């Protein structure tokens, strides 16, 4: 992780030709919790924020200074669950813990460009819902042209789905899930027994012990090297070494999921990625106390079978009212109607959710859900220097991202966003007329 992070830094540095220290000066610093600093200064050194303060804050002499007069300085948003840049979201194998988005992320995807335009500094790419056990995910920066350089956290989490994948029913889905872990247990037992015997042989001792006892004693001897790639991920997940992103489309799936994860003693490692109807299980989710990532569709519609009358529920409001932190995802991607993360936050405010709760849902809560709450999600000393310099308030629809810094390095400049110019004017600009956004190194 550390290695790839440094590699990424190297690349960004090469592209942006910037030094290690940066400062943003003159803008209004806005944090999701509502705190503001006018004419504030953010200092970033070695990728991390070393100072946040008023105009008097000292700026290191070697820092590249980004003037932000009249601008809003806001933490980079976090996209906590997405399939962007994957050509296909799901492998067509129900239990596939051995696949890895590492092999599929397209660094040149224009969707990463959209992330920067949308103030997103961190992206958790994970496979889709149509699975029983999906593959490993990866947390990346939306900038760079090799996955390794973009990587923030490799092989981060495992995707599971309680909701039946296509063609399955809920019984078969749960049966497959149970079978996968039961198969794993069987396999580990056989490995343990073998390892025990090997160990004995090594010492030239006899195996004078019942098989069950051999399994028990051999368990401690099993290491990851005894397993091949087919088993490693699931084994690590079963031991709680990998977070689980658990898809529960319906409320009933939440209930079944919580129950099953408790049995496996993995509830504490789970993040719930829920559908709209899951709001009915809000109390159970609250009790579980695990992060909840909402679907991009924020409104649940249900028609009364007796009257046909359609009831609409604004899902985030239910979670907000229940005091359950939630994380927002865009619906679709790009700035179609609701494809931007901040638009989703604005919709929450529109429906009466407190501004700080809505903003946290795209920053701090999102960072928490991918285990990076101490690293991302707000502008604070010690956190990473992911900073969006905005032309206005993050929830105002006229706001554009003016500049985007990732770990202190300039990753995007609106002034150089040729694509945005083309879209605005409808003109195909000749290649020379504008330089590509700093992040984009594709042709």
């Amino acid at each position, binding site marked *: 992780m550390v290695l790839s992070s440094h590699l990424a830094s190297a690349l960004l540095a090469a592209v942006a030709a910037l030094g290690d220290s940066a400062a943003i000066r003159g803008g209004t610093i806005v944090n999701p919790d509502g705190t503001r600093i006018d004419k504030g200064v953010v200092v970033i050194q070695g990728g991390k924020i070393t100072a946040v303060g008023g105009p008097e804050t000292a700026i290191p002499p070697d820092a590249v200074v980004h003037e932000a007069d009249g601008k809003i300085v806001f933490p980079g948003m976090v996209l906590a669950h997405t399939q962007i840049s994957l050509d296909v979201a799901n492998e067509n194998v129900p239990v596939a813990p051995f696949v890895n988005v590492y092999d599929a992320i397209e660094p040149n995807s224009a969707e990463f460009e959209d992330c920067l335009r949308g103030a997103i500094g961190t992206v958790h790419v994970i496979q889709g819902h149509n699975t029983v056990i999906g593959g490993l995910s990866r947390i990346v920066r939306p900038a760079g042209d090799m996955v390794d350089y973009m990587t923030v956290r490799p092989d981060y989490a495992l995707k599971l789905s309680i909701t039946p994948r296509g063609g399955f029913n809920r019984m078969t889905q749960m049966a497959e899930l149970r079978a996968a872990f039961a198969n794993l247990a069987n396999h580990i037992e056989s490995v343990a027994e073998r390892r025990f015997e090997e160990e004995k042989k090594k010492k030239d001792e006899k195996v004078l012990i019942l098989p069950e006892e051999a399994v028990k004693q051999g368990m401690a001897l099993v290491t990851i090297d005894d397993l091949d790639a087919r088993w490693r991920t699931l084994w690590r997940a079963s031991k709680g070494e990998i977070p689980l992103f658990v898809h529960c489309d319906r409320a009933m799936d939440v209930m079944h999921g919580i129950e099953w994860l408790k049995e496996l003693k993995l509830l504490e490692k789970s993040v719930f990625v829920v559908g709209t109807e899951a709001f009915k299980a809000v109390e159970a989710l609250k009790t579980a106390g695990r992060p909840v990532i909402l679907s991009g569709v924020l409104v649940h519609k249900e028609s009364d*079978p*007796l*009257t*046909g009358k359609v009831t609409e529920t604004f899902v985030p409001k239910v979670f907000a009212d229940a005091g359950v932190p939630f994380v927002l995802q865009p619906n679709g991607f790009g700035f179609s109607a609701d494809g931007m993360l901040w638009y989703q936050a604005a919709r929450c405010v529109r429906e009466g959710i407190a501004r700080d709760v809505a903003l946290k849902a795209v920053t701090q809560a999102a960072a928490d859900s991918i285990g990076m709450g101490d690293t991302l999600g707000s502008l604070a000393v010690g956190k990473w220097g992911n900073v969006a310099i905005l032309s206005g308030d993050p929830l105002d629809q006229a706001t554009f991202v003016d500049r985007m810094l990732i770990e202190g390095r300039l990753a995007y400049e609106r002034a150089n966003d040729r694509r945005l110019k083309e879209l605005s004017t409808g003109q195909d600009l000749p290649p020379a007329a504008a330089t590509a956004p700093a992040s984009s190194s594709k042709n």
Partner: protein
Amino acid sequence: MLEPLFFLALAVLTPGVPSLQPPPLALHVDAIIQPDGAIGPGGWIVLRNGRIESIGPAEPPVGCARLEFAGGVAAPGFVDVDTSLGAAGQLSEPARPFTPEVATGDALEPDHSSFLAAARSGVTTVGLMPGGRNIIDGRVAIVRTADDDGRGAQLCGHGPLRYTLSAQAFDGSRVPTSRMGALPQLREMLAKSPAPSSGTSLVAADTADEIRIVIDTFGGAGRSFALLHPTRADDAIELVRGSVSGRPTAAVIGPFDLDTGERDVRVAKLLADGGVAVAFSGGGDGGSLRLTAAVATRSGFDAKAARTGLSLAGARLLGIESEAGTIEAGKRADLVVLDGDPLDLAAKVKLVLVGGAPVEAAKESP
């Protein structure tokens, strides 16, 4: 119980004496369904020459064949407006969208075994309904499920025209392909042709807006009309109840079974509560007809309205209420005797008379 029936069957059906005038028949029951659907007091029902002669507590005249049903309830023979009983082939002529000249009576097969089954289960009159693929489908045939000899069915007239304004009349294979294209023509036809002096138009409409269009178009043309299977009438109930430009006189609902959604059942109740006479349809099967009424009743449909929905409401729709639909002196002797309220599924049919002739009793099960 069985013996008098045998006697009756012999008296009426003895093939050797067809020319003889059968003697008048007197039935004694403990309760009689009133024209308004209430369960009224029982008494003697005297039938002569296929008609109801009198009803009352008084002893029947001498010379009558007498049948007494302890615990019996006499109901008017059931009338099922929407059936395809005895249809020989299709009842739709889909080549053209407007076929007012089609009459389903021309496709009737009177000897069809389904009529006997219908009669046994208490259905004495059915409508043979055109197919429902045309904007004007054709005329409904009125069929009695048994003729005077109690053997085959009998066509006894042509009922109302049936129209379809729901989606199945527009399948894209002929012009007009849409309601937009059809309505100008239909309006013109309704304006040009005189309204029938009696009877009503049966119009199939499903969604709320189709119902609105029917009310606008038929009500606007001053026509009396009834809705066929208006499954989403609940959405348009204000319009149906209101009298913007005319309102439906009646609606045909059913069949219901155990799988019918609550919402569909509720529509029946809403219509009835809104003053629309509901005629149940069981597709010609008396059992289904009664199940339809039973399901509706259990869901809060008024019991009296449910009983009229089994007979009188349908008779009115077919324009034969002077002949059938109630137990009243002078009407045809179409009767069902059960051992309980016809709304109760547990009640068994004891006797069915079509035009005074008893329908061959249901086979005793082995």
